């Protein structure tokens, strides 16, 4: 007799507001673990979290002096992410990456790739993009198209687990 396990997957939604490397890693560890447990995972990247999904190479074309200044000091991209504490002008972040390698922990790029393969949806917040002057092509290929808070809340209200990182 088949047991009554529902075909519907449990949902996990994660808001990634932070652009710190350590917080990004935590978000991806939870997202990939959730996916490996059969959960339907959506990650909603907003504000500083957008830095995690920005392409590493190329310029960001935006309009207006303030936006251009912002995107200059806040270029983003995984290779520019820093530890939230003890960055120590880059030394702390460099050491953390060494420690990660030592224990065979995937890099943030590897996590993003793994997450995509596992069906995790990585979504940039359209409003933050509008405010910061970020076009859709500023983001890497794993990022889905820009979406709004209503979509996020639509997922969150059906989610078993919702997290804000």
């Amino acid at each position, binding site marked *: 007799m088949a047991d009554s*396990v529902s075909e519907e997957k449990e949902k996990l939604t994660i808001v990634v507001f932070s652009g710190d490397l350590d917080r990004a890693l935590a978000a991806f560890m939870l997202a990939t673990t959730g996916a490996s*447990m059969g*959960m339907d995972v959506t990650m909603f990247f907003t504000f500083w979290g957008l830095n995690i999904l920005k392409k590493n190479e190329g310029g960001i074309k935006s309009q207006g002096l303030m936006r251009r200044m912002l995107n200059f000091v806040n270029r983003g991209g995984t290779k520019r992410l820093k530890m939230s504490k003890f960055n120590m002008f880059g030394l702390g972040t460099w050491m953390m990456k060494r420690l990660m390698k030592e224990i*065979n922990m995937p890099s943030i790029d590897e996590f993003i790739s793994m997450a995509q393969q596992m069906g995790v949806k990585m979504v940039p917040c359209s409003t933050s993009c509008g405010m910061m002057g970020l076009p859709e092509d500023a983001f890497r290929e794993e990022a889905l198209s820009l979406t709004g808070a209503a979509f996020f809340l639509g997922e969150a209200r059906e989610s078993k687990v919702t997290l804000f990182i």
Partner: protein
Amino acid sequence: MQADQTLDCMGLYCPMPIVKTADKIKSLKTGEVLEVVADDPGIRQDMPAWSKATGHEFLGIEEAGKEIKVYVKKTHD
């Protein structure tokens, strides 16, 4: 304990053993047993939790020195 396939996760920390288990279980037939060998102590709790969430059967743990061997039976596709 007998196993039909083995997954070596020595040197890998959470979530990697679980992520790899989720992938490896696809290549087993229903009823087959997967042995996962890891040295991350987190596996002792992670595997029962993963099994409960996915509906597969957690069979037990055997420890041999640094190796922690956990056994899971695939119960469905």
